[in-house]
């Protein structure tokens, strides 16, 4: 059964993502590869930004990851990235730390999910 856009039970809404990109599973794989590479770079930058309390950088990086997660229908990651963006805007360090932890947890969940249910 397909999961709905706001269904957070699965880390990837595959049906919605495929619909957006024209139904090509190989292309989805390619995009997930691009996402992973980008995520690892931005997560590193986020860890630096949190330790340096650089709230504008937290907001920008959160915003950017929110967009790419939404494009690939990754609802858990999208929500965690949104929380990071808000934490940056609100200059809330604790919220930023919690959201970053949640973001990394969601990323691990996505990796496991992709191993368990490949395309």
């Amino acid at each position, binding site marked *: 059964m397909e999961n709905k856009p706001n269904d957070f039970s699965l880390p990837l809404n595959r049906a919605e993502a495929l619909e*957006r990109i024209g139904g090509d599973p190989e292309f989805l794989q390619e995009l997930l590869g691009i996402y992973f590479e980008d995520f690892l770079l931005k997560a590193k930058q986020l860890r630096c930004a949190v330790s340096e309390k650089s709230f504008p950088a937290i907001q920008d990086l959160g915003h950017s990851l929110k967009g790419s997660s939404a494009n*690939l229908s990754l609802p858990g990651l999208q929500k965690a990235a949104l929380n990071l963006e808000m934490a940056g805007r609100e200059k809330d360090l604790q919220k930023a730390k919690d959201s970053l932890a949640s973001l990394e947890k969601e990323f691990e969940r996505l990796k496991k999910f992709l191993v368990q249910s490949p395309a």
Partner: protein
Amino acid sequence: MKPPATAKKKSPKKPVKVLIAEDDPVCSRILDKRLRQWGYQTLLAKNGSEAWRALQKPGQRVALLDWLMPKITGVELCRRIRQISKPKYTYIILLTAKNKPQDVIKGLQAGADDYMTKPVNFLELQARLQTGRRIIQLEDHLLETQKRLYELSMRDNLTALWNRAMILRFLEEELAQGAREKSPTSAIMLDVDELKMINDTYGHLVGDAVLRSVADSLTGNVRIYDKIGRYGGDEIFIVLPNCTLRSAQKIAERLRAACAKKKIRVAGGRISVTLSLGCASAEPKDRLSVDRLIWACDRALYQAKRWGRNRVAIPDHSPEFRKGTSHGKQAK
């Protein structure tokens, strides 16, 4: 000097080049693939600075700009592109997660033509890009028409030679340039011998065909930088930059000989016509005015007519004049 083509040539449609300015690599890749599938050429920019460099190029006509980008935002790019003078319009679609009415207004006021919220609905994007394509094609069509009308406004509509206003302008410019560069400027005034008789005998349509044929013959027998214009009636004026009177005489003689041996195909057979030509020259030290040079050419043309037509003459105040006129075998 080729006359302008009167019919518009149909060229194969070139793919429209779309700039995708997007810092998110996933979104950029999806847009790139989709747009290529729809037949667009794409150019990718990872940040606002790269996008700004691409946008300033004249061939960049359609752009998809992300609002939030490193270095320069999409909204700032919209403002900048509307402030610079580009020969052709750039159609901009702003992409953003911002979806409040005040954001839409801000984006459009900055100079965006359209606005789409993310995640992008691709069917909608395809339709919106088609609107952009229609607008730039409409602009291309209008500019092409404007260019053709401009060219036509400079031409004589019977012969496709320069019209009187243009040939006089060229003469004025060449006299000024000749004075500046200390080089002589020459000119030829010519007319078709007995054109009135041709018109009376064969009708004006034949007379028109004769003028067109003479114009063609002249065009192929002058130097590439010489300018030929219809002065009025059957009188044609030629401006010869950086040309002495002696060289002008040689050119005029070449034109006379080419026309005399040409058979012009008209309804009911072939006819041949001859030309009378008057040459004059302005040496830089003379500082001759446009009117004075035309007057000198006119005087010479009158002499060529008086001495029996089908010949080249120069004004009687020049030393060469006393040596006689050129006329077929007598020209040497």
